[in-house]
């Protein structure tokens, strides 16, 4: 069902853009057949298709990161953005893009390479995640953990604004565009790299499906059922920071997908079994990301909205609704 929806939304996403292309020709160019207009084929295959695939990868990565965080912290409000992980990734990228002002030319020359972007973003994400986790082991209260995460978010944005103050207009512009969030501009080569990291993250997640299920009962029960909690936690953290890091590096810090999608999925399929949840959350994340991107394109117009604005516009109400809803939040 979800898979079918993904295909439909994916095709819809391919069909809309600043140049209007008939649906028949979209299909033709995908299948490699002749179309009426050669540029159409070029637009579809080299611009829109990579963007659609990016949307699928980014959406599912962020949604899965949110799911992992919510299970690990046993907190319904956990997610890559709320816990400051996205901010950590942003800090990594900021250091790379804006840090040239501080560290001179060596880093600036690295900035163009994808690998360094991904490493910086993943490293930043991992660092913040680690700090939040250490804080989490000190304070048992889950509300405090969220507040600590939010504080780290503000802390990193403060550092970023200081760096922004000292950087050149050109660097700043590059960073600002990145922070709006965008799925476009990825070459097939970059996409391949993205997919490699993505597969690694997914593979790690598949290996911890079983311990994640026992973590639904809490850390102590999980341990009593033979779960090696420390290694499970480490794998969860590595997978989350890889996925969040690679997404943030390529598409910018995208809000709310990680937090909202797992909840939406749980409302639709009433299960907590991660064998079902993991694929369902990944698909739902991909679908919502495609829809957000299609909306951001503003079909039939030349304008493109910042992607982050769109995800926030529908994400924020969902979170508020989750908070004011009387029924207990479930995992």
């Amino acid at each position: 069902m979800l898979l079918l929806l993904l295909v439909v939304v994916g095709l819809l996403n391919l069909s809309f853009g600043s140049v209007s292309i008939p649906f028949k020709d979209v299909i033709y160019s995908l299948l490699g057949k002749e179309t009426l207009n050669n540029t159409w084929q070029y637009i579809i295959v080299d611009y829109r298709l990579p963007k659609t695939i990016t949307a699928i990868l980014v959406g599912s990565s962020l949604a899965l990161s949110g799911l992992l965080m919510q299970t690990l912290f046993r907190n319904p409000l956990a997610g890559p953005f709320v816990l400051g992980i996205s901010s950590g990734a942003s800090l990594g990228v900021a250091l790379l893009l804006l840090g040239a002002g501080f560290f001179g030319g060596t880093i600036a020359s690295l900035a163009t390479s994808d690998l360094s972007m991904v490493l910086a973003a993943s490293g930043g994400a991992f660092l913040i995640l680690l700090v939040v986790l250490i804080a989490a082991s000190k304070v048992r209260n889950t509300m405090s953990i969220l507040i600590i995460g939010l504080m780290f978010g503000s802390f990193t944005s403060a550092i970023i604004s200081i760096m922004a103050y000292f950087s050149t207009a050109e660097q700043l512009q590059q960073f600002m565009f990145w922070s709006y969030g965008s799925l476009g501009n990825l070459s097939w080569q970059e996409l391949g790299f993205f997919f490699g990291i993505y597969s690694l993250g997914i593979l790690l997640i598949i290996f911890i499906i079983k311990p994640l299920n026992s973590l639904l009962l809490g850390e102590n029960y999980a341990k009593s059922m033979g779960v090696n909690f420390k290694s499970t936690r480490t794998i969860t953290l590595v997978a989350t920071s890889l996925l969040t890091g690679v997404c943030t590096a390529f598409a910018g810090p995208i809000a709310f997908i990680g937090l909202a999608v797992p909840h939406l999925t749980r409302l639709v399929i009433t299960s907590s079994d991660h064998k079902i949840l993991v694929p369902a959350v990944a698909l739902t994340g991909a679908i919502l990301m495609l829809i957000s991107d299609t909306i951001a394109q503003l079909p039939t117009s030349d304008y493109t909205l910042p992607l982050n604005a769109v995800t926030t516009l529908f994400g924020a109400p969902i979170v508020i609704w989750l908070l004011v809803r009387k029924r207990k939040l479930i995992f």
Partner: protein
Amino acid sequence: MATNKSNTILKTENLSIGYTVRKKALIIQENLNLELKRGVLTCILGNNGIGKSTLLRTLAKMQPALSGSVLIDNKNSDDYTSQELSKKISLVLTESVPPSNLSVFELVALGRQPYTNWIGTLSDIDKTMVTKAMQQTEITNLVSKKIFELSDGQKQRVMIARALAQNTEIIILDEPTVHLDIHHKIAVLKLLKNISKNLNKSIIIATHEVSFAIQLADTLWLMHPNKCVTGTPDALITNKTLQELFNSNLISFNSNTKQFNIKNT
């Protein structure tokens, strides 16, 4: 005995329990030499803060012993991997389970995790064990209910069923009756008594239900400050150890009715 299995399933040797705070050992109880026989229901009684939960946590290897050792089936518990240990000891804890979409069946089935493959597929044996555990705890009517729909008494039965599904020789429960009314308290305790008798499981319960413990337990572990006295309830009443359990001028003990009463002063 004809079997070569020893009748003792768990034993502690000069065990000291407590916490390490800033590299200094904070001893709560020391020199504990306890023994748990197969198929025996044991209740741990003692004041708040005397170390009941700490003892349980140490026995289950959830926190390290300060010194001494815990032997399970004549093997030091430190020599067990967590996977092996999870086939020996199962737990029912005081902490509440986070609300989730798990159904009762799924939750009980989590008890099979030590036996399932890397992704947790339930074999036919696993499914039979889960169904059996649910029959033994009389919760088959709840099978497809969600956890958040259950009452406290039902939840406790489900957690006991999960421990049974884990198919361990030892089941450790920390205050399993704490939020229950008197009917459900007795129901849960009788259930545990039957499990130990009929399924030959060794059960350790930390509880404040003194009068029920006296009536139901095969053995009592009485935790006093700095010592732990063990014996059958009747023996402990005869040698007056039970009377001294709560060193309080508010309570008196009646050996005839085997009840603690409010002292009239």
